[in-house]
């Protein structure tokens, strides 16, 4: 082949690559959503007859469906407000004040972000549940109190507890990026402390708070663990979908899935419309103002004590989880505190292959999905940013889409799309096989790795790749020797977050797992159902330890970017 011929062939392949990757992402991310919407109208379902709007009519006339939609909305709004009420003041406390042990306490307060939602939920159950440690403690003190941790308020409590971290982290990040000179300028112009707070600090914190609001609201909208464990008869859309599926009302489950997806899209668009600041960076950088020093010994001791008590309260559920994992089966009946503690549950868990299998399943499936998400993320980000235009924007949109869509929706969509053998329309029978869960995890990992890799690549000087090319390096060598080493922190940060999230996934697993691929979260749920609370707690602790270990290792390697 002549040099000219080879030279012309390469650009043709290069120009096709974005479309090939885009086609794969559309098949993986967009297509299942279209299939589920189509099947909700009776289009494409095997033996489903012709197109019909009957299921939608039914959805709009049934009160329980409307209730679930309405509850999903107001629970999300209240969860966001509650999380903001806890997270924002905590952010100010730790970012603007020099209190003893600030670094350690600040990190402890952020810990729930690294823990899977299901772990937080069962930890709450063991601490504040009807027969939890708190209830037993109060009864031992002679207080005749009894409560049921169930319904809307239980869900709100768990949401507030697990989601305040978003506001806390965003507030701290926003404050640390503010220029202290602006505050000094306001002071020199005679502004009081409250005027500075409301007219200088908070307005400039708006992008950070808007980001936290969006994240919290969307997380709450798709929340499944808390409504599933604590909801009881109080159904939100995610639990309604799973209930419909379990009841065999597949068509209705597809309608609910479509409606929840539309609700999520509408919420996202509305939130962005209400606050354009969501798209803004956090503003000018500068040296943040010096932290306020506490001058008296009393103030310092008080602040430190308050901080530790707060950290204790926030970490108490997880401490309870550890305690519960040490309670041998059938040894704790009416006592306030477990009379016997030991490692029986861990011995049971580690000595049995069947018991260990869910942990190994979770690890390999999370690892495989993460690896695939990194490969797809790097390819999509490079092609998107280099190519730009329509395919570039579409690639980024496809990578981001799963973030806006609740996990339950994707699980149902994949279940609908991949339960039919019709290769000519891109449908294969994957439900019930080894591959469906890793595939679902891959879809949910894409926005986590993608966001980080896109950001990393945007910061990378494009001239570096041109320099490599001018020195004779081909595309593969440029990626392996230049792009990937420089993207390492971004890749590790995204991959770490994806791995931790998938390790504890419950929301997609409950729809798509098989006995052979059951992950830890499903085993926790099964153990709870058969009253093996010690084993469930031990699994929870295992998940917590694995997640924390991954978090610490990756945070270290990612240079503190997690």
């Amino acid at each position, binding site marked *: 082949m002549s*040099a*000219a011929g080879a*030279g*012309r062939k*390469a*650009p043709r392949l290069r120009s096709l690559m974005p479309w090939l990757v885009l086609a794969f992402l559309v098949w993986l991310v967009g297509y299942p959503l279209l299939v589920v919407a189509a099947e909700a109208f009776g289009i494409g379902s095997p033996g489903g007859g012709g197109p019909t709007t009957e299921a939608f009519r039914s959805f709009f006339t049934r009160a329980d469906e409307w209730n679930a939609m309405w509850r999903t909305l107001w629970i999300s709004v209240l969860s966001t407000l509650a999380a903001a009420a806890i997270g924002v003041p905590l952010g100010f406390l730790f970012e603007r004040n020099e209190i003893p042990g600030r670094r350690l306490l600040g990190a402890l307060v952020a810990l729930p972000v690294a823990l899977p939602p299901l772990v937080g939920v069962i930890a709450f159950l063991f601490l504040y549940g009807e027969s939890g440690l708190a209830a037993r403690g109060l009864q031992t003190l002679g207080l005749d109190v009894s409560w049921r941790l169930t319904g809307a308020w239980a869900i709100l409590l768990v949401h507030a507890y697990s989601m305040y971290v978003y506001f806390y982290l965003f507030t701290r990040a926003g404050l640390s990026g503010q220029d202290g000179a602006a505050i000094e300028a306001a002071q020199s112009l005679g502004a009081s402390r409250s005027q500075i707070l409301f007219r200088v600090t908070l307005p400039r914190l708006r992008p950070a708070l808007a980001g936290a609001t969006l994240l919290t609201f969307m997380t709450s909208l798709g929340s499944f663990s808390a409504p599933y464990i604590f909801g009881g008869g109080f159904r939100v859309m995610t639990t309604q979908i799973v209930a419909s599926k379990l009841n065999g009302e597949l068509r209705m489950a597809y309608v609910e899935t479509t409606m929840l997806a539309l609700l999520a899209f509408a919420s996202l668009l509305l939130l962005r419309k209400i606050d354009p600041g969501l798209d803004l960076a956090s503003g000018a950088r500068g040296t943040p103002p010096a932290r306020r020093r506490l001058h008296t010994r009393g103030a310092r001791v008080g602040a430190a004590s308050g901080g530790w008590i707060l950290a204790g309260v926030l970490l108490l559920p997880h401490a309870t989880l550890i305690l519960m994992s040490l309670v041998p089966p059938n040894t704790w009946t009416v006592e306030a505190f477990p009379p016997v503690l030991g490692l029986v549950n861990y011995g049971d868990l580690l000595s049995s292959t069947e018991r260990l299998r869910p942990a190994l399943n979770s690890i390999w499936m999370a690892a495989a999905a993460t690896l695939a998400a990194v490969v797809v993320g790097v390819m999509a980000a490079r092609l998107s940013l280099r190519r730009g235009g329509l395919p570039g924007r579409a690639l980024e949109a496809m990578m981001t889409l799963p973030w806006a869509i609740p996990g339950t929706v994707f699980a149902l969509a994949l279940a609908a799309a991949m339960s039919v053998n019709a290769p000519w329309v891109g449908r294969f029978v994957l439900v019930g096989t080894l591959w469906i869960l890793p595939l679902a995890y891959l879809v949910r990992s894409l926005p986590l790795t993608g966001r980080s890799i896109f950001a990393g690549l945007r910061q990378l*000087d494009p*001239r*570096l790749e*041109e*320099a*490599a*090319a*001018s*020195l*004779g*390096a*081909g595309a593969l*060598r440029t990626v392996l*020797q*230049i792009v990937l*080493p*420089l993207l390492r922190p971004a890749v590790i940060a995204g991959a770490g977050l994806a791995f931790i999230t998938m390790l504890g996934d419950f929301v997609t697993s409950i729809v798509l797992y098989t006995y052979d691929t059951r992950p830890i979260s499903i085993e926790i749920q099964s153990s709870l159902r058969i009253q093996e609370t010690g084993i469930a707690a031990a699994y929870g602790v295992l998940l917590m330890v694995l997640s924390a270990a991954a978090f610490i290792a990756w945070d270290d390697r990612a240079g503190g970017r997690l």
Partner: protein
Amino acid sequence: MTASGVSVRFDDVFKAFDDTVVLAGVSLTVEPGEIFALLGPSGSGKTTMLRLLAGFEQLDRGRLLIADEAIEHLPPARRGVGMLFQSYALFPHLSVAENVAFGLKVRGGAQGGTEARVAEMLDLVRLSGFEQRRIAELSGGQQQRVALARALAPRPRVLLLDEPLSNLDPALREETRADLRRTVKQTGITTVLVTHEQEEAFELGERIGLLNEGGLEQVGEPAELYRDPASRFVATFVGRCSVLAGVVKERHGGGELTVRIESQPEAPAWRCRSNGELAVDDRVDVCVRPESVKLDSGDGPGLPGEIEAERFTGSNSFYAVRLAAGPTVEVAMPGTAAGLSGACVVRQLAGELPSAFAAAESGP
């Protein structure tokens, strides 16, 4: 060390981004071993020419030739072109030696040969002993030299320099400029340099191509561009000049003209030179270099005016003189021409002929 240079040719090159034409049929030949500077304002198309040559952009029409061989279809890696980027684009995760060796290893060079070449290149840019340093540990000037060594290491046929000194502070820039010229001339490689700074183009470039709005206004040696500009744009972009409106009164041989300055009908006419076809009574713009005129206090033959401002730069004082009928002329006087203020006359220096061009549509 000296390599035999190759020619570089742009043949009717056309390039547009969306609806914006960046290069409108540019033709240019760079001679073997020459250092050629592409000079022009932002958006004139000079960086696009460099990127087309490097293969980072694809041309829409025309041909690109290196050593008479068409290269427009080749990917960057196969053009044999070394490039020094404005940001240097050094690989921050690699050491100095690894950066310089990158292009050699890509070509699968033997270990010993690579090491020797790296040492030779670092010696050339006077950075021997810096092999193991990280990029972040180097000063701006040192980074620039590493980037040059890296670009030269694989023995490219052509060297491209994209605003090579713009990231350096002014003091370092002058020193590095001389260093860069010495190093490039030592290798004998054909070099195309892009810059928007006239001083940089004049000192580094043996010839200069001045670009404006996607076309070449003039190609020539630095002195030619300065003393004999082909257009009003060249005259005003290269060096300082004041533009005075005038009317051609008389034509002489060798392109010389007598021009009466429009606002000064009573003042003596000026002797100018012109490259264009100008007739008697044509309206012209006369481009006056500050050093081609002098200032006398009080009355006398010349253009009467009033000194408005003085700017002292060390070797010269520059005076802004408002002529009686409106336009301002800048006049350079050696040293501190003390005592000059108020009313004065601007006179043409003997032997210094300002350039005259057909008058522009709008004012100066």
